[in-house]
């Protein structure tokens, strides 16, 4: 219980830190939202009038107080300066696309990582292991934007199998639209998972208790699935929690490459137009998500692994 309370208080500190940091950082960076909305040829009077209207001429502390008040009373980070709509509404409208992409990416990453890690561990230091090591190095080194562009060029433009970008309408279309972006994220994420899982598998499969199982005549597939994989899954789960930040960042970039109108695209746009409330909303939400998932992974790890529960956690990654 103590652990849970501490986790929650840590979470609150992080989120509060993000809220404050983003609020002030955005306002330190040069660039005027009113000017971005009205364009280069608007008169200074028009810009000034819009600044008044948007409340940008109030002092920073007043703006911050109003922001915090609204956050607690409405659960919203403010009215978008650009569209005049609630930022919460704008963000929630786009959340399904981003969540869908995270889900699809995870699915692909795991379905690439688990079989390859198993293969590499079983053929430890033999050809398959070497090939997989080379592949993971390539995957890690490949910028997500680049792999995205390659995938589009091949599967969308050349072969015409899948959409080049955007979210299609009709049954099954949204999923089809997420396949290439999901693979692009998975190519970056899977290698990290493969490395960790492979190392754990090798450690577990050479453990004495596994040798004992073998000696007792337990079938090899049963050892792999019931015992080895389970033993190695835990650290990988924790690693997955830690990778959430990568996953969120990765999907945001990939949204841009594949013209998916999700939270990432909205974030890019809002930053370039200095739409403060929307940027704050998205960063707040992503920070919450990252912190929550990391905390859940930690807690889960502690619950499942007696070593962590009893004493300090071992370094897992």
């Amino acid at each position, binding site marked *: 219980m103590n652990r849970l309370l501490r986790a929650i208080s*840590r979470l609150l500190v*992080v989120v509060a830190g993000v809220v404050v940091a983003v609020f002030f950082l955005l306002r330190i960076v*040069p660039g005027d939202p009113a000017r*971005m909305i009205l364009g280069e040829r608007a008169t200074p009077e028009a810009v000034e009038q819009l600044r008044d209207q948007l409340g940008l001429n109030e002092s920073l502390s007043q703006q911050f107080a109003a922001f915090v008040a609204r956050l607690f009373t409405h659960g919203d980070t403010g009215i978008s300066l650009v569209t005049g709509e609630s930022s919460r509404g704008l963000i929630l409208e786009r959340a399904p696309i981003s969540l869908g992409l995270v889900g699809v990416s995870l699915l692909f990453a795991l379905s690439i990582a688990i079989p390859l890690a198993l293969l590499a561990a079983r053929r430890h230091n033999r050809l398959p292991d070497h090939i997989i090591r080379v592949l993971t190095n390539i995957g890690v080194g490949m910028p997500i934007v680049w792999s995205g562009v390659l995938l589009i060029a091949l599967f969308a433009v050349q072969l015409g199998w899948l959409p080049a970008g955007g979210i299609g309408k009709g049954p099954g279309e949204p999923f089809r639209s997420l396949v290439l972006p999901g693979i692009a994220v998975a190519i970056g994420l899977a290698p990290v998972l493969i490395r960790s899982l492979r190392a754990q598998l090798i450690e577990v499969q050479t453990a004495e208790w596994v040798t004992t199982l073998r000696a007792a005549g337990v079938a090899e597939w049963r050892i792999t699935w019931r015992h080895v994989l389970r033993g190695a899954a835990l650290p990988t789960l924790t690693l997955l929690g830690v990778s959430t930040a990568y996953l969120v960042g990765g999907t945001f970039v990939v949204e841009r490459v594949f013209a998916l109108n999700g939270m990432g695209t909205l974030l890019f746009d809002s930053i370039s137009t200095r739409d403060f409330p929307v940027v704050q909303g998205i*960063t707040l939400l992503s920070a919450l998500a990252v912190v929550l998932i990391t905390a859940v992974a930690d807690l889960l790890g502690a619950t499942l692994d007696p070593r962590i529960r009893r004493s300090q956690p071992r370094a897992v990654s």
Partner: protein
Amino acid sequence: MTNERPRLRRALAAIAATAAIAVTLAACGSSGSDPTNGSGGAAGEPVAGGTLVFGRTAAVNDLNLHTQIAANNAFAIDKIFEPLVSFDESGEIIPWLADYAESDDELTYTFTLRNGLMFSDGNPVTADDVVFSLETHQAVADSPLPLTAPIESIEAASETEVVITLDEPYTPFLSELSNFSNGVLPADFGGKSEAEFFENPIGTGPFVLNEWDKAGDISFTKNENYWQEGKPYLDALEYRYIADDTQLRQQLAAGQLDAIDIVPAANAAEIEADSSLRLSQTEGWSAEQVFFNTERAEFADVKVRRAIAMALDREGITQATTFGTAETASALLPPSIQYSAADDDIALPYDVAAAQAELAGSDFPDGFEFSLMVPSGNTQRAQIAQAIQEQLSEIGITVNIEQLEIATFRERFFAYDFDAMINNGQSDAPDPNGFITFQADPEGFSQSYWTHYTNDTVTALMEAGRVTPNGDERAEIYLDIQKQLAQDAPYIPLFYPANLKATTSNVAGFTVLPNGSVRFADTWRVDASA
């Protein structure tokens, strides 16, 4: 407590990472793309029906015709609202919602509305609607596309006749009136509040708003009551928001889009080579330029500016950075603007020896160092900057290129906090007055495009140009202005960018106006089943 430390570090890392994402994104910024446009379609008889999906790099966030000017909103607004007069592809003023007659003293303009003209909701357009629309626009204090003409009165002479009287002659009047900001809407906003009205606007334009995501896509349906018989051909028009121009081309190639709003000059050839696509390349109303802040000591010296103008190989820069899609600038006004001196050979010639001599006679004979500001994410401008850097090193001037994210870039030049910058001058109408005023009026808010340039001769000519009737005398005035600007070189026009857009081969009648807007009323799908 021992296990708290890594956790805390991780927590701080999470804060730092989130903040870093925000800041990095701010730094890499948007690929500042101002829409430009392109060409006509294939031949054949127009076919009615179908939907056209048009990809653009910015979303539509406001449809108020009186307060908006930026292309993202402007080219949606002009599908819904139309002015009394308009201009064609070559920039000629043409009657639109009304026919007009001008009195001999050039003070009275009588507009007669087309027979049976209706709003998209089926209500008739009356002279009262026109008076309300123009007066409402006049009352908007900071309209970015204002009616600056000295208007004495706007009156409904009958149900279908509007008389506009001026205090004194004002030659650019019709040109100004052709801006979409003078579009006609129902009197009293059809009984709604202004804010409500612009959420679901009613106009006379070829298209009617259907669905609208202010940070995303917008779609229109055909205006069944449109005044041009048989138009628009399309049943529906969708603007798909796709921030990245690479994605635009990929989706066009994959057949997900029918047309795209922007093709970078570097990719024009690749579109042209693709038999399933059509490149649309048309003349625009803009000029890419180097601007000097004449409040800096070096650039206050006209000899320095002239030396730089002569040291730049504009022809070479144009070829290298626009891949032959643009015309090298030889005067401020693009050829598609009335009275352009682009064919008069008035620019200072490219001559490095003359440039060196000019600099030797200035207050900075040994050269100097300055910073050239360009918006980041714009490959073409970065390349121009590099060419300038290289060419000016020949005459002993060191250029430091400063790439700034667009919001920062704007903030800097509005504050006159720059030495020199690369930017783009443009017009919204075919008359030269707007372009010249924005770039040479020391009293205007733009202070001669943020250069602080003042020349009393130019100012006097500019004022004369507004009241002199069209003809040889007015032509002479604008020639003199352009000559003086070329000699003083407060800015150096480099080239006139073309409007570059693309469609699939299924699209015809893709008519692009010089301001970069597509006249979708004229567009059809050749594959629409009749």
